[in-house]
Protein backbone atom coordinates (compact mmCIF):
# COMPACT_ATOMS: atom_id res chain seq x y z
CA UNK A 1 0.00 0.00 0.00
CA UNK A 2 2.96 2.31 -0.38
CA UNK A 3 0.90 4.37 -2.72
CA UNK A 4 1.93 7.65 -4.29
CA UNK A 5 0.05 10.83 -4.52
CA UNK A 6 0.32 14.52 -3.95
CA UNK A 7 -0.66 15.84 -0.58
CA UNK A 8 -3.09 18.72 -0.80
CA UNK A 9 -5.50 20.60 1.35
CA UNK A 10 -8.43 18.35 0.76
CA UNK A 11 -9.76 16.48 3.74
CA UNK A 12 -9.80 13.25 1.84
CA UNK A 13 -6.16 13.61 1.02
CA UNK A 14 -5.29 14.42 4.58
CA UNK A 15 -7.12 11.36 5.72
CA UNK A 16 -5.32 9.23 3.19
CA UNK A 17 -2.00 10.59 4.34
CA UNK A 18 -2.72 9.19 7.78
CA UNK A 19 -2.76 5.78 6.21
CA UNK A 20 0.60 5.81 4.57
CA UNK A 21 2.73 5.38 7.64
CA UNK A 22 0.58 2.56 8.91
CA UNK A 23 1.03 0.86 5.61
CA UNK A 24 4.77 1.31 5.69
CA UNK A 25 4.94 0.19 9.30
CA UNK A 26 3.38 -3.04 8.18
CA UNK A 27 6.35 -3.59 5.93
CA UNK A 28 9.09 -3.15 8.47
CA UNK A 29 9.86 -2.65 12.12
CA UNK A 30 11.66 0.62 11.78
CA UNK A 31 9.22 2.63 9.77
CA UNK A 32 8.63 6.34 9.73
CA UNK A 33 8.12 7.93 13.08
CA UNK A 34 4.56 9.05 12.87
CA UNK A 35 3.66 8.30 16.45
CA UNK A 36 7.03 9.09 17.97
CA UNK A 37 7.19 11.58 20.78
CA UNK A 38 10.57 12.97 19.76
CA UNK A 39 12.76 13.52 16.72
CA UNK A 40 16.04 12.58 18.37
CA UNK A 41 18.46 10.53 16.26
CA UNK A 42 18.60 6.84 17.09
CA UNK A 43 21.50 5.64 19.21
CA UNK A 44 23.68 3.22 17.26
CA UNK A 45 23.85 -0.31 18.54
CA UNK A 46 25.71 -3.43 17.44
CA UNK A 47 28.89 -3.84 15.45
CA UNK A 48 29.53 -2.28 12.07
CA UNK A 49 29.85 -5.11 9.56
CA UNK A 50 32.86 -4.89 7.29
CA UNK A 51 33.09 -5.83 3.62
CA UNK A 52 35.91 -8.12 2.40
CA UNK A 53 37.83 -5.06 1.20
CA UNK A 54 38.02 -3.77 4.76
CA UNK A 55 35.50 -0.97 4.39
CA UNK A 56 32.18 -0.81 6.21
CA UNK A 57 29.42 -2.74 4.52
CA UNK A 58 26.57 -0.33 3.83
CA UNK A 59 24.30 -3.06 2.52
CA UNK A 60 20.90 -3.02 4.09
CA UNK A 61 17.38 -1.73 4.22
CA UNK A 62 17.73 1.76 5.66
CA UNK A 63 14.08 2.68 5.83
CA UNK A 64 13.86 3.32 9.52
CA UNK A 65 13.49 6.77 11.01
CA UNK A 66 15.39 9.49 9.21
CA UNK A 67 14.52 10.90 5.84
CA UNK A 68 11.32 9.09 5.30
CA UNK A 69 9.16 12.03 4.30
CA UNK A 70 5.91 10.52 5.41
CA UNK A 71 5.93 11.83 8.95
CA UNK A 72 6.28 15.24 10.52
CA UNK A 73 8.79 13.89 13.09
CA UNK A 74 10.97 12.56 10.28
CA UNK A 75 10.71 15.82 8.41
CA UNK A 76 11.65 17.81 11.50
CA UNK A 77 14.59 15.51 12.15
CA UNK A 78 15.72 16.03 8.57
CA UNK A 79 15.82 19.80 8.99
CA UNK A 80 17.65 19.60 12.28
CA UNK A 81 14.91 20.23 14.81
CA UNK A 82 15.52 17.91 17.73
CA UNK A 83 12.33 17.61 19.71
CA UNK A 84 12.64 15.87 23.05
CA UNK A 85 9.98 15.35 25.68
CA UNK A 86 10.18 18.88 27.02
CA UNK A 87 13.05 20.47 25.12
CA UNK A 88 13.59 21.34 21.50
CA UNK A 89 16.83 22.39 19.87
CA UNK A 90 17.87 23.56 16.44
CA UNK A 91 21.04 21.53 16.01
CA UNK A 92 22.36 23.83 13.28
CA UNK A 93 22.29 27.00 15.39
CA UNK A 94 22.15 25.42 18.84
CA UNK A 95 19.15 27.61 19.68
CA UNK A 96 16.80 26.22 22.32
CA UNK A 97 13.15 26.36 21.27
CA UNK A 98 10.25 26.68 23.69
CA UNK A 99 8.46 23.38 24.22
CA UNK A 100 5.28 22.45 26.04
CA UNK A 101 4.55 18.83 26.99
CA UNK A 102 1.90 16.88 25.19
CA UNK A 103 -0.76 17.15 27.89
CA UNK A 104 -3.83 19.38 27.68
CA UNK A 105 -3.72 19.93 23.96
CA UNK A 106 -6.87 21.34 22.50
CA UNK A 107 -8.48 19.45 19.67
CA UNK A 108 -7.66 20.61 16.15
CA UNK A 109 -9.35 19.95 12.86
CA UNK A 110 -7.44 18.70 9.83
CA UNK A 111 -6.86 22.19 8.50
CA UNK A 112 -5.31 23.33 11.76
CA UNK A 113 -3.18 20.19 11.94
CA UNK A 114 -1.88 20.70 8.43
CA UNK A 115 -1.13 24.39 8.87
CA UNK A 116 0.79 23.62 12.03
CA UNK A 117 2.65 20.81 10.25
CA UNK A 118 3.66 23.23 7.51
CA UNK A 119 5.19 25.55 10.09
CA UNK A 120 6.86 22.72 11.99
CA UNK A 121 8.54 21.41 8.84
CA UNK A 122 10.07 24.74 7.94
CA UNK A 123 11.15 26.21 11.28
CA UNK A 124 14.76 25.07 10.95
CA UNK A 125 17.55 27.58 10.54
CA UNK A 126 19.77 25.62 8.16
CA UNK A 127 18.97 27.34 4.89
CA UNK A 128 21.12 27.66 1.78
CA UNK A 129 22.34 31.19 1.15
CA UNK A 130 21.48 32.22 -2.39
CA UNK A 131 22.87 35.22 -4.16
CA UNK A 132 20.63 38.20 -3.33
CA UNK A 133 19.19 38.43 -6.84
CA UNK A 134 17.62 34.98 -6.29
CA UNK A 135 16.13 35.51 -2.82
CA UNK A 136 12.75 36.54 -4.19
CA UNK A 137 12.69 33.67 -6.68
CA UNK A 138 13.26 31.11 -3.94
CA UNK A 139 10.52 32.69 -1.85
CA UNK A 140 8.13 32.72 -4.80
CA UNK A 141 8.86 29.10 -5.68
CA UNK A 142 8.26 28.09 -2.10
CA UNK A 143 5.06 30.11 -1.75
CA UNK A 144 3.72 28.71 -5.01
CA UNK A 145 5.04 25.19 -4.64
CA UNK A 146 1.64 23.68 -5.38
CA UNK A 147 2.23 24.80 -8.94
CA UNK A 148 6.00 25.16 -9.14
CA UNK A 149 7.40 22.08 -7.41
CA UNK A 150 9.24 20.13 -10.14
CA UNK A 151 8.49 16.83 -8.44
CA UNK A 152 4.78 17.39 -8.99
CA UNK A 153 3.04 15.06 -11.36
CA UNK A 154 5.22 12.13 -10.33
CA UNK A 155 8.45 13.53 -11.66
CA UNK A 156 11.66 12.44 -9.95
CA UNK A 157 12.91 14.21 -6.84
CA UNK A 158 16.49 13.91 -7.99
CA UNK A 159 19.79 14.11 -6.14
CA UNK A 160 20.10 15.12 -3.35
CA UNK A 161 16.42 15.73 -2.68
CA UNK A 162 15.77 12.00 -2.54
CA UNK A 163 17.85 11.92 0.64
CA UNK A 164 18.92 8.68 2.26
CA UNK A 165 18.50 5.64 0.01
CA UNK A 166 16.03 3.17 1.42
CA UNK A 167 18.14 0.25 0.25
CA UNK A 168 21.85 -0.05 -0.44
CA UNK A 169 23.59 -2.98 -2.09
CA UNK A 170 27.38 -2.88 -1.95
CA UNK A 171 29.71 -4.78 -4.24
CA UNK A 172 33.46 -4.27 -4.70
CA UNK A 173 32.90 -2.07 -7.76
CA UNK A 174 29.41 -0.62 -7.39
CA UNK A 175 26.89 0.67 -4.95
CA UNK A 176 23.23 0.37 -5.84
CA UNK A 177 20.84 2.79 -4.16
CA UNK A 178 17.09 2.29 -4.31
CA UNK A 179 14.54 4.96 -3.50
CA UNK A 180 10.97 3.71 -3.46
CA UNK A 181 8.41 6.17 -4.68
CA UNK A 182 7.12 8.32 -1.89
CA UNK A 183 3.81 9.82 -0.99
CA UNK A 184 3.53 12.56 1.55
CA UNK A 185 5.68 15.60 0.98
CA UNK A 186 6.85 14.74 -2.47
CA UNK A 187 5.21 12.15 -4.65
CA UNK A 188 7.82 10.54 -6.79
CA UNK A 189 8.38 7.50 -8.89
CA UNK A 190 10.70 4.75 -7.69
CA UNK A 191 14.28 5.60 -8.54
CA UNK A 192 17.63 3.85 -8.45
CA UNK A 193 21.26 4.81 -8.80
CA UNK A 194 24.15 2.58 -9.87
CA UNK A 195 27.28 4.20 -8.47
CA UNK A 196 30.75 3.04 -9.54
CA UNK A 197 33.33 2.87 -6.73
CA UNK A 198 36.10 1.44 -8.91
CA UNK A 199 38.27 4.53 -9.02
CA UNK A 200 37.04 5.91 -12.34
CA UNK A 201 36.87 9.63 -12.97
CA UNK A 202 33.91 11.82 -13.93
CA UNK A 203 33.00 12.37 -17.54
CA UNK A 204 33.72 15.91 -18.65
CA UNK A 205 30.76 18.02 -17.61
CA UNK A 206 30.38 19.35 -21.15
CA UNK A 207 29.91 15.80 -22.40
CA UNK A 208 27.14 14.96 -19.96
CA UNK A 209 23.47 15.39 -20.65
CA UNK A 210 21.93 16.91 -17.57
CA UNK A 211 19.80 14.46 -15.62
CA UNK A 212 17.82 14.36 -12.38
CA UNK A 213 20.40 12.23 -10.57
CA UNK A 214 23.52 13.33 -12.41
CA UNK A 215 26.63 11.21 -12.82
CA UNK A 216 27.61 9.77 -9.46
CA UNK A 217 30.97 8.22 -8.55
CA UNK A 218 31.85 6.97 -5.08
CA UNK A 219 35.07 6.56 -3.15
CA UNK A 220 36.02 5.83 0.43
CA UNK A 221 37.49 8.45 2.71
CA UNK A 222 38.42 6.34 5.72
CA UNK A 223 35.20 4.67 6.80
CA UNK A 224 32.98 7.18 5.04
CA UNK A 225 31.60 6.62 1.55
CA UNK A 226 31.74 9.83 -0.46
CA UNK A 227 29.50 10.00 -3.53
CA UNK A 228 30.38 12.81 -5.90
CA UNK A 229 27.80 13.85 -8.49
CA UNK A 230 27.78 16.28 -11.40
CA UNK A 231 25.86 16.56 -14.65
CA UNK A 232 22.41 17.61 -13.47
CA UNK A 233 19.54 19.19 -15.27
CA UNK A 234 18.34 22.45 -13.74
CA UNK A 235 14.81 21.20 -13.19
CA UNK A 236 14.89 19.67 -9.75
CA UNK A 237 14.99 21.28 -6.31
CA UNK A 238 17.70 20.13 -3.96
CA UNK A 239 15.92 19.81 -0.63
CA UNK A 240 12.59 18.51 0.49
CA UNK A 241 11.14 21.97 1.10
CA UNK A 242 11.90 25.55 0.28
CA UNK A 243 11.92 26.04 -3.47
CA UNK A 244 15.66 25.48 -3.57
CA UNK A 245 16.37 25.52 -7.29
CA UNK A 246 19.82 25.05 -8.80
CA UNK A 247 21.72 25.40 -12.05
CA UNK A 248 23.24 22.76 -14.32
CA UNK A 249 26.54 23.45 -12.60
CA UNK A 250 25.40 21.98 -9.32
CA UNK A 251 27.93 19.69 -7.70
CA UNK A 252 26.73 17.39 -4.92
CA UNK A 253 28.89 15.56 -2.42
CA UNK A 254 27.06 12.98 -0.34
CA UNK A 255 28.66 11.36 2.70
CA UNK A 256 27.39 8.08 4.15
CA UNK A 257 28.79 6.76 7.41
CA UNK A 258 27.66 3.56 9.03
CA UNK A 259 27.85 3.12 12.80
CA UNK A 260 26.35 -0.19 13.88
CA UNK A 261 22.72 -0.14 12.90
CA UNK A 262 22.64 3.54 11.93
CA UNK A 263 23.56 5.31 8.72
CA UNK A 264 24.32 9.04 8.79
CA UNK A 265 23.84 10.85 5.50
CA UNK A 266 24.67 14.41 4.52
CA UNK A 267 24.83 16.17 1.20
CA UNK A 268 26.82 19.28 0.37
CA UNK A 269 25.54 21.36 -2.53
CA UNK A 270 27.93 23.56 -4.44
CA UNK A 271 26.48 25.82 -7.09
CA UNK A 272 28.45 29.02 -7.62
CA UNK A 273 25.96 30.11 -10.27
CA UNK A 274 23.20 30.66 -7.73
CA UNK A 275 24.56 30.12 -4.21
CA UNK A 276 26.76 32.51 -2.25
CA UNK A 277 28.42 29.58 -0.52
CA UNK A 278 28.19 25.76 -0.40
CA UNK A 279 25.35 24.40 1.69
CA UNK A 280 25.24 21.18 3.67
CA UNK A 281 22.10 19.40 4.78
CA UNK A 282 21.59 18.71 8.43
CA UNK A 283 22.80 15.13 9.10
CA UNK A 284 20.04 12.58 8.73
CA UNK A 285 20.38 9.39 10.72
CA UNK A 286 18.62 6.35 9.25
CA UNK A 287 18.06 3.13 11.13
CA UNK A 288 18.70 -0.32 9.73
CA UNK A 289 15.60 -2.42 9.39
CA UNK A 290 16.17 -5.18 11.95
CA UNK A 291 14.09 -7.73 10.10
CA UNK A 292 16.47 -9.82 7.96
CA UNK A 293 13.55 -10.87 5.82
CA UNK A 294 12.28 -7.35 5.21
CA UNK A 295 11.92 -6.29 1.59
CA UNK A 296 10.90 -3.14 -0.17
CA UNK A 297 7.33 -3.61 -1.34
CA UNK A 298 6.38 -2.89 -4.90
CA UNK A 299 5.46 0.72 -5.38
CA UNK A 300 2.19 1.35 -7.11
CA UNK A 301 2.39 3.57 -10.16
CA UNK A 302 2.65 7.21 -9.20
CA UNK A 303 -0.61 8.90 -10.07
CA UNK A 304 -1.36 12.56 -9.52
CA UNK A 305 -4.92 12.98 -8.31
CA UNK A 306 -4.98 15.95 -6.02
CA UNK A 307 -4.27 19.06 -8.02
CA UNK A 308 -7.84 19.37 -9.17
CA UNK A 309 -8.81 19.81 -5.51
CA UNK A 310 -6.21 22.39 -4.54
CA UNK A 311 -7.94 25.70 -4.06
CA UNK A 312 -5.46 27.70 -1.98
CA UNK A 313 -1.72 28.29 -1.85
CA UNK A 314 -1.45 26.33 1.36
CA UNK A 315 1.28 23.79 0.95
CA UNK A 316 3.82 21.79 2.83
Amino acid sequence: MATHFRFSRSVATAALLCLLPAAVFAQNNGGPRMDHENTLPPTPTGPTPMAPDGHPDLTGLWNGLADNLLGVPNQMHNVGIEVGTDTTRDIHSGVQIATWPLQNRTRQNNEQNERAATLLRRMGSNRPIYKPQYWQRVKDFDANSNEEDPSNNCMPAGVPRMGVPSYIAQTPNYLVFIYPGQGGLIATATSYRMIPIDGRKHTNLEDLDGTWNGESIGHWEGDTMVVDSIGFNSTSWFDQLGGYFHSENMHVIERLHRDGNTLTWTATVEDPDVLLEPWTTTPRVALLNPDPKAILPESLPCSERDFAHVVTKEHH
Partner: protein
Amino acid sequence: MRAKEIRVLAKRALMIAALAPLALQAARGQSNSPKPSTDAKSTAVGAADDTTKSSGASDAAKTLKVAAEAVGLARWSGVGGQRLPEVDVINTMEFWGSGSSYGSGPSNKPGEPGPAFKTEYHASLGYNPPAMRVEMTRTASGAAPQHTIEVVRDKYAWDESEIGAGLLPGKGTATPAMAAANNRLLQLWLLPYGVIKAAIAAGDKMKASTEKGATVLTFPLTGPLADVTVKATLDAQNQVAKVETRSDNPTLTDLLTEIEYSDYKDHGEIATDVKSPGHIVRKQGGRPVLDLQVKTWDANNPYLVFPVPENVKQAAAH
Protein backbone atom coordinates in the same frame (compact mmCIF):
# COMPACT_ATOMS: atom_id res chain seq x y z
CA MET B 1 -9.84 -6.81 -10.56
CA ARG B 2 -6.81 -5.27 -8.91
CA ALA B 3 -8.12 -1.78 -9.37
CA LYS B 4 -11.33 -2.81 -7.67
CA GLU B 5 -9.42 -4.22 -4.70
CA ILE B 6 -7.45 -1.03 -4.42
CA ARG B 7 -10.62 1.03 -4.46
CA VAL B 8 -12.14 -1.08 -1.68
CA LEU B 9 -8.96 -0.87 0.37
CA ALA B 10 -8.75 2.87 -0.16
CA LYS B 11 -12.37 3.30 0.92
CA ARG B 12 -11.76 1.33 4.10
CA ALA B 13 -8.54 3.16 4.67
CA LEU B 14 -10.22 6.52 4.38
CA MET B 15 -12.76 5.59 7.00
CA ILE B 16 -10.07 4.32 9.36
CA ALA B 17 -7.93 7.34 8.76
CA ALA B 18 -10.77 9.69 9.40
CA LEU B 19 -11.72 7.96 12.64
CA ALA B 20 -8.28 7.21 14.00
CA PRO B 21 -7.26 10.74 14.96
CA LEU B 22 -10.54 11.21 16.82
CA ALA B 23 -10.01 8.03 18.77
CA LEU B 24 -6.43 8.94 19.56
CA GLN B 25 -7.34 12.39 20.75
CA ALA B 26 -10.08 11.05 22.96
CA ALA B 27 -7.73 8.47 24.40
CA ARG B 28 -5.24 11.16 25.27
CA GLY B 29 -7.78 13.10 27.24
CA GLN B 30 -7.56 16.20 25.17
CA SER B 31 -9.97 19.00 25.79
CA ASN B 32 -12.71 19.65 23.31
CA SER B 33 -12.55 23.34 24.01
CA PRO B 34 -10.58 25.56 21.68
CA LYS B 35 -10.19 27.99 24.58
CA PRO B 36 -7.21 28.05 26.93
CA SER B 37 -7.34 25.85 29.99
CA THR B 38 -9.13 27.06 33.10
CA ASP B 39 -5.90 27.26 35.04
CA ALA B 40 -4.30 29.48 32.49
CA LYS B 41 -7.32 31.70 32.16
CA SER B 42 -7.53 32.34 35.86
CA THR B 43 -4.23 34.13 35.64
CA ALA B 44 -5.16 35.97 32.52
CA VAL B 45 -8.33 37.70 33.54
CA GLY B 46 -8.77 37.07 37.23
CA ALA B 47 -8.41 40.38 39.02
CA ALA B 48 -10.85 43.17 39.58
CA ASP B 49 -10.31 46.61 38.08
CA ASP B 50 -7.92 49.02 39.70
CA THR B 51 -5.93 46.32 41.40
CA THR B 52 -2.51 44.91 40.74
CA LYS B 53 -1.96 41.30 41.66
CA SER B 54 1.12 39.15 41.14
CA SER B 55 0.97 35.49 40.22
CA GLY B 56 3.22 32.58 41.11
CA ALA B 57 5.79 31.03 38.80
CA SER B 58 3.45 28.24 37.75
CA ASP B 59 0.65 30.63 36.91
CA ALA B 60 3.12 32.81 35.02
CA ALA B 61 4.15 29.85 32.89
CA LYS B 62 0.53 29.02 32.16
CA THR B 63 -0.18 32.62 31.26
CA LEU B 64 2.75 32.61 28.89
CA LYS B 65 1.58 29.43 27.23
CA VAL B 66 -1.88 30.91 26.72
CA ALA B 67 -0.32 34.01 25.18
CA ALA B 68 1.86 31.85 22.94
CA GLU B 69 -1.16 29.89 21.76
CA ALA B 70 -3.27 33.03 21.30
CA VAL B 71 -1.05 34.28 18.47
CA GLY B 72 -0.36 30.83 17.01
CA LEU B 73 3.23 30.63 18.20
CA ALA B 74 2.86 27.49 20.34
CA ARG B 75 1.75 24.75 17.98
CA TRP B 76 1.44 21.02 17.57
CA SER B 77 0.16 18.92 14.74
CA GLY B 78 -1.71 15.68 14.76
CA VAL B 79 -1.03 14.99 11.09
CA GLY B 80 -0.62 11.27 10.77
CA GLY B 81 -1.27 10.78 14.46
CA GLN B 82 2.17 12.02 15.46
CA ARG B 83 2.64 12.86 19.11
CA LEU B 84 5.32 15.50 19.33
CA PRO B 85 4.94 18.12 22.05
CA GLU B 86 3.84 21.66 21.38
CA VAL B 87 6.70 23.90 20.25
CA ASP B 88 7.40 27.48 19.23
CA VAL B 89 7.08 27.33 15.44
CA ILE B 90 7.87 30.96 14.65
CA ASN B 91 11.22 31.57 13.00
CA THR B 92 11.04 33.81 9.94
CA MET B 93 8.24 36.14 8.89
CA GLU B 94 7.72 39.33 6.94
CA PHE B 95 5.06 41.96 6.76
CA TRP B 96 4.07 44.93 4.69
CA GLY B 97 2.18 48.00 5.80
CA SER B 98 1.55 51.62 5.07
CA GLY B 99 0.81 54.66 7.17
CA SER B 100 2.70 57.50 8.71
CA SER B 101 6.06 57.93 10.32
CA TYR B 102 7.16 61.04 12.10
CA GLY B 103 10.43 62.88 12.15
CA SER B 104 12.23 64.08 15.26
CA GLY B 105 11.74 67.75 14.38
CA PRO B 106 9.70 70.21 16.43
CA SER B 107 5.96 69.79 16.77
CA ASN B 108 3.36 72.39 17.51
CA LYS B 109 2.39 70.90 20.87
CA PRO B 110 4.24 68.83 23.50
CA GLY B 111 3.53 65.13 23.00
CA GLU B 112 2.38 65.73 19.45
CA PRO B 113 4.24 64.06 16.61
CA GLY B 114 6.96 65.75 14.60
CA PRO B 115 6.78 66.26 10.84
CA ALA B 116 4.81 63.50 9.15
CA PHE B 117 5.90 61.27 6.28
CA LYS B 118 3.65 59.06 4.22
CA THR B 119 5.32 55.70 4.76
CA GLU B 120 5.49 52.33 3.01
CA TYR B 121 6.96 49.76 5.37
CA HIS B 122 8.31 46.25 4.75
CA ALA B 123 9.96 44.22 7.48
CA SER B 124 11.51 40.79 7.07
CA LEU B 125 12.77 39.12 10.19
CA GLY B 126 13.92 35.98 11.88
CA TYR B 127 14.47 34.82 15.43
CA ASN B 128 16.92 32.01 14.71
CA PRO B 129 19.27 33.83 14.30
CA PRO B 130 17.85 37.14 15.55
CA ALA B 131 17.77 39.41 12.50
CA MET B 132 15.58 42.04 10.89
CA ARG B 133 15.59 44.02 7.66
CA VAL B 134 13.32 47.08 7.53
CA GLU B 135 12.74 48.74 4.19
CA MET B 136 10.92 52.07 4.31
CA THR B 137 9.92 54.60 1.71
CA ARG B 138 9.02 57.89 3.39
CA THR B 139 7.55 60.82 1.54
CA ALA B 140 7.08 64.25 3.08
CA SER B 141 4.54 66.59 1.60
CA GLY B 142 5.92 68.00 -1.65
CA ALA B 143 9.27 66.23 -1.28
CA ALA B 144 10.96 63.34 -3.06
CA PRO B 145 10.58 59.89 -1.45
CA GLN B 146 13.36 58.70 0.84
CA HIS B 147 14.17 55.00 0.65
CA THR B 148 16.08 53.26 3.44
CA ILE B 149 17.00 49.66 4.19
CA GLU B 150 18.15 49.00 7.75
CA VAL B 151 19.43 45.58 8.78
CA VAL B 152 20.52 43.94 11.99
CA ARG B 153 21.75 40.43 12.68
CA ASP B 154 23.04 39.55 16.13
CA LYS B 155 25.60 42.23 16.97
CA TYR B 156 25.91 43.48 13.41
CA ALA B 157 23.95 46.40 11.99
CA TRP B 158 24.23 47.94 8.56
CA ASP B 159 22.34 49.96 5.97
CA GLU B 160 21.85 48.65 2.44
CA SER B 161 21.61 50.60 -0.78
CA GLU B 162 19.61 47.67 -2.16
CA ILE B 163 18.43 44.36 -0.73
CA GLY B 164 21.47 42.17 -0.10
CA ALA B 165 23.94 44.94 -0.86
CA GLY B 166 27.61 44.37 -0.17
CA LEU B 167 27.52 40.60 -0.56
CA LEU B 168 28.73 40.53 -4.17
CA PRO B 169 31.15 42.87 -5.93
CA GLY B 170 29.32 45.66 -7.71
CA LYS B 171 25.98 44.83 -6.06
CA GLY B 172 25.24 47.87 -3.94
CA THR B 173 26.77 49.24 -0.78
CA ALA B 174 26.48 48.01 2.79
CA THR B 175 27.27 50.75 5.30
CA PRO B 176 28.08 49.58 8.83
CA ALA B 177 25.78 51.06 11.48
CA MET B 178 26.89 49.33 14.66
CA ALA B 179 25.57 52.09 16.91
CA ALA B 180 22.06 51.27 15.74
CA ALA B 181 22.27 47.54 16.50
CA ASN B 182 20.55 47.65 19.88
CA ASN B 183 17.69 49.80 18.69
CA ARG B 184 17.08 47.53 15.70
CA LEU B 185 17.24 44.40 17.84
CA LEU B 186 14.78 45.99 20.22
CA GLN B 187 12.29 46.42 17.35
CA LEU B 188 12.58 42.69 16.70
CA TRP B 189 12.07 41.66 20.31
CA LEU B 190 9.16 44.04 20.84
CA LEU B 191 7.05 42.49 18.11
CA PRO B 192 4.35 40.28 19.68
CA TYR B 193 6.25 37.07 18.92
CA GLY B 194 9.53 38.54 20.17
CA VAL B 195 7.82 39.57 23.39
CA ILE B 196 6.63 36.03 24.03
CA LYS B 197 9.97 34.48 23.09
CA ALA B 198 11.86 36.93 25.30
CA ALA B 199 9.45 36.38 28.18
CA ILE B 200 10.01 32.63 27.90
CA ALA B 201 13.77 33.17 27.75
CA ALA B 202 13.59 35.27 30.91
CA GLY B 203 12.56 32.17 32.87
CA ASP B 204 11.92 32.86 36.54
CA LYS B 205 12.56 36.56 36.00
CA MET B 206 9.29 36.82 34.06
CA LYS B 207 6.45 37.92 36.30
CA ALA B 208 2.76 37.81 35.46
CA SER B 209 0.30 40.10 37.16
CA THR B 210 -3.03 41.72 36.54
CA GLU B 211 -3.55 45.44 36.25
CA LYS B 212 -7.01 46.88 35.79
CA GLY B 213 -8.24 43.47 34.79
CA ALA B 214 -5.60 42.93 32.14
CA THR B 215 -2.76 40.43 32.25
CA VAL B 216 0.67 42.03 32.39
CA LEU B 217 3.98 40.28 31.74
CA THR B 218 7.12 41.96 33.07
CA PHE B 219 10.59 40.68 32.30
CA PRO B 220 14.12 41.76 31.44
CA LEU B 221 15.64 41.26 28.01
CA THR B 222 19.01 39.55 27.66
CA GLY B 223 22.35 40.06 25.92
CA PRO B 224 23.11 43.64 24.86
CA LEU B 225 19.58 44.64 25.89
CA ALA B 226 19.89 43.11 29.36
CA ASP B 227 19.27 46.46 31.07
CA VAL B 228 15.93 46.87 29.33
CA THR B 229 12.80 45.76 31.14
CA VAL B 230 9.69 45.00 29.10
CA LYS B 231 6.14 45.36 30.32
CA ALA B 232 3.64 43.68 28.02
CA THR B 233 -0.11 43.99 28.47
CA LEU B 234 -2.38 41.33 27.00
CA ASP B 235 -5.83 41.98 25.62
CA ALA B 236 -8.94 39.96 26.36
CA GLN B 237 -7.87 37.39 23.76
CA ASN B 238 -4.47 37.06 25.48
CA GLN B 239 -2.73 38.73 22.56
CA VAL B 240 -0.01 41.29 23.15
CA ALA B 241 -1.80 44.66 23.04
CA LYS B 242 0.75 47.05 24.50
CA VAL B 243 4.48 46.91 25.10
CA GLU B 244 6.47 49.41 27.13
CA THR B 245 10.16 49.41 27.92
CA ARG B 246 12.09 51.06 30.72
CA SER B 247 15.69 51.10 31.77
CA ASP B 248 17.78 52.55 34.56
CA ASN B 249 20.78 52.56 32.26
CA PRO B 250 21.16 56.15 30.92
CA THR B 251 22.86 54.88 27.75
CA LEU B 252 19.67 53.03 26.82
CA THR B 253 17.13 55.77 27.43
CA ASP B 254 16.96 56.51 23.72
CA LEU B 255 15.54 53.03 23.26
CA LEU B 256 12.57 53.50 25.54
CA THR B 257 9.57 52.63 23.49
CA GLU B 258 5.85 52.16 23.72
CA ILE B 259 4.02 50.12 21.10
CA GLU B 260 0.34 49.32 20.73
CA TYR B 261 -0.88 46.34 18.69
CA SER B 262 -4.50 45.77 17.67
CA ASP B 263 -6.78 44.20 15.05
CA TYR B 264 -5.22 40.76 15.28
CA LYS B 265 -6.01 38.15 12.63
CA ASP B 266 -4.24 35.87 10.18
CA HIS B 267 -2.97 38.44 7.68
CA GLY B 268 -1.14 35.92 5.51
CA GLU B 269 -1.85 35.25 1.86
CA ILE B 270 -1.23 31.62 2.79
CA ALA B 271 -3.18 30.80 5.94
CA THR B 272 -1.06 29.75 8.91
CA ASP B 273 -3.35 30.35 11.89
CA VAL B 274 -0.68 32.74 13.15
CA LYS B 275 -2.44 35.85 14.40
CA SER B 276 -0.68 39.12 13.63
CA PRO B 277 -1.61 42.71 14.46
CA GLY B 278 -3.29 44.79 11.78
CA HIS B 279 -2.47 48.10 13.40
CA ILE B 280 0.83 49.11 14.99
CA VAL B 281 1.50 52.41 16.74
CA ARG B 282 4.99 53.04 18.07
CA LYS B 283 5.94 55.93 20.33
CA GLN B 284 9.26 57.08 21.65
CA GLY B 285 9.55 59.64 24.42
CA GLY B 286 5.77 59.81 24.41
CA ARG B 287 5.65 60.97 20.78
CA PRO B 288 4.38 58.85 17.91
CA VAL B 289 7.11 57.73 15.52
CA LEU B 290 5.18 55.19 13.47
CA ASP B 291 1.51 54.50 12.80
CA LEU B 292 1.11 51.51 10.52
CA GLN B 293 -1.79 49.62 8.95
CA VAL B 294 -0.62 46.12 8.08
CA LYS B 295 -1.54 44.86 4.62
CA THR B 296 -0.01 41.38 4.63
CA TRP B 297 1.88 39.34 7.19
CA ASP B 298 3.58 36.17 5.93
CA ALA B 299 4.21 33.99 8.96
CA ASN B 300 4.84 30.77 7.07
CA ASN B 301 8.56 30.71 7.88
CA PRO B 302 9.41 32.10 4.42
CA TYR B 303 12.89 32.02 2.90
CA LEU B 304 14.56 35.03 4.52
CA VAL B 305 18.30 35.19 5.07
CA PHE B 306 20.54 37.83 6.58
CA PRO B 307 24.17 37.12 5.63
CA VAL B 308 26.52 39.73 7.07
CA PRO B 309 28.63 41.54 4.45
CA GLU B 310 32.36 41.15 4.94
CA ASN B 311 32.97 44.87 5.33
CA VAL B 312 30.42 44.98 8.14
CA LYS B 313 32.18 42.15 9.95
CA GLN B 314 35.46 43.96 9.56
CA ALA B 315 33.99 47.20 10.86
CA ALA B 316 32.65 45.41 13.92
CA ALA B 317 36.06 43.90 14.61
CA HIS B 318 37.70 47.33 14.90
